[in-house]
């Protein structure tokens, strides 16, 4: 309930997993933000003289086989993950919500068509569409953003259509129709505000999935290209040295896990906090 704001904050502070998820997410965002103008070491350019250094005051988590500072790479990689996540989720959210709301407002064959389109695109996992996209426009950050974004469209379209249908069935929508409002105005003024919380929750969860997908694509070499640091590519590069320097794989692995974990907790927490009925049951 967006009504009394004070009680939302009070409930949020009491919600432990929401606070933990929020802290992890803020940590990730903070790392990315700081890396924009400062990193403790060199994240991009190679320095073979300092390769494979153990953790020290200068190199907090050591250096990799090219002499780059691992902690700095993680920070800069967060930037990359967040960019991919935000842009890809935005693509999916905007296109998906529009499609879903349109299907719900028009019903009939339009709804049918949108839903069959969703079913069809669900048959293609993000990895598969990324491979196909790579074949067309070549590998790179844009490819992974597009692939993950397209994958997200039917996710949001389905969700939006489902919850929007429930809102369309409410009497206050009937009242708006009786007042003479058209489908577009009803969608904007009544339907979207009432489904917003559910969309927000889905967005945080999709964000987590996007980070995982980006890491997977980069791991396969289809995503972010060197020299731009990426968590997924750090994993793939560390793989060759897995017995020699296992920590180099564990650092990005743990970072990915914590980010995804944090976002999922945040999403679950938001679901509770934005739905007063669920919150009361706890």
């Amino acid at each position, binding site marked *: *309930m*967006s*009504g009394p704001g004070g009680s939302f904050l009070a409930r949020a502070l009491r919600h432990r997993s929401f606070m933990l998820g929020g802290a992890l997410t803020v940590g990730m965002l903070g790392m990315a933000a700081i890396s924009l103008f400062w990193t403790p070491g060199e994240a991009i350019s190679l320095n073979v003289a300092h390769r494979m250094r153990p953790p020290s005051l200068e190199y907090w988590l050591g250096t990799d086989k090219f002499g780059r500072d691992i902690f700095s790479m993680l920070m800069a990689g967060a930037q990359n993950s967040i960019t991919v996540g935000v842009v890809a989720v935005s693509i999916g959210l905007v296109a998906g919500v529009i499609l879903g709301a349109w299907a719900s407002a028009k019903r009939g064959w339009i709804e049918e068509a949108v839903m069959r389109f969703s079913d069809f695109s669900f048959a293609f996992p993000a990895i598969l569409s990324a491979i196909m996209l790579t074949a067309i426009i070549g590998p790179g950050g844009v490819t992974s953003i597009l692939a993950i974004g397209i994958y997200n469209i039917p996710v949001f379209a389905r969700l939006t259509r489902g919850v929007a249908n429930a809102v369309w069935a*409410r*009497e*206050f929508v*009937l*009242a*708006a*129709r*009786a*007042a*003479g*409002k058209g489908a577009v105005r009803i969608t904007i*003024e*009544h339907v979207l*505000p*009432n489904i917003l919380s559910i969309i927000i929750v889905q967005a945080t969860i999709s964000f987590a999935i996007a980070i995982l997908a980006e890491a997977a694509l980069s791991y396969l070499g289809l995503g972010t290209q060197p020299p731009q640091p990426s968590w997924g590519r750090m994993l793939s590069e560390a793989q060759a040295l897995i017995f020699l320097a296992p920590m180099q794989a564990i650092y990005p692995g743990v970072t990915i896990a914590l980010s995804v974990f944090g976002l999922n907790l945040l999403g679950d927490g938001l679901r509770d906090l934005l739905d007063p009925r669920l919150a009361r049951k706890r």
Partner: protein
Amino acid sequence: MNAPATVPVLAVEELQRHYTLPREHLFREPGKVYALNGVSFEIQPGRSFGVVGESGCGKSTLARTVMALETPTAGTVRILGHDLFDLDKDALRALRRHFQMVFQDPYGSLDPRHKVGRVVAEPLTVSDEVGARDRVEKVADVLRSVGLKAADMDKYPHEFSGGQRQRIAIARALVTRPELIVADEPVSALDVSVQAQVLNLMRDLQDSFGVTYMLISHDLAVVEYVCDEVAVMYLGRIVERGRTEALFARPSHPYTRALLDAVPRPGVGRAKRGAALKGTVMSQTALGTGCAFADRCPMAKPRCLEEAPPLRDLGDHHLSACHYAEDVPAG
């Protein structure tokens, strides 16, 4: 826009509404629901017209069709002389300020995310004739006339009780000063002690604004209290119509008789209930020959199964769709 007294506020003619059910079988025709099967009536300005009947009689479909929320299969709805389904979109939208609706559920009919001021102003925002300041004034006025405070417009609906929410819903319907308000079970979700407040309010508003009501209800006592005229519906048809007092005092259709007998009356004392009507409402998915009520009718004769009784005039504005209307017991 003030209609001359000769033009009825609402004129419904031979209204039919049939729905096609989702196809269940590949090779069979999909089923149909016959919700309205030829309904006609008129309401004169300043009068209250009640529609009573049990679930499945088509009364809610009738209300929604009159509100142009559903398109009829056949027939016409005229409001102040304008045929609703012959108007283009913009003309219909402009006409909507003259007929508004009050819904049953005081919790579901107000958007929980909008403040009361916005809820009540909704019908005004459709036509751009009213400026923002005028709008606030109108909302304040109408809130006061339904017994709320102007300051209530800054609150959310969940801050109000059921009865107050129904006042808000009435305020929304009243804000354009419509000629016709269609009220679909406006008090059936309310507690008895709150019902009376809302019913009295509806009567007061009629006295002060001269609004015309079409009141849909399953509760005969509510209809009797508010309405001058009443139509009794059964399976998509009006089976009896007339002045409320006359119709309830001397029903001319066995279904009306049975409805009146079935209503429990407080204070009568134990076990004085009339004999219960047998069976349940026949399915709406078939149109039989003969009278639709024949299978439950205590007076049914062979003729009733063969020949559908037309709604015939018994004189003194009283109509009944029964071959044996004159024989219905006075009770």
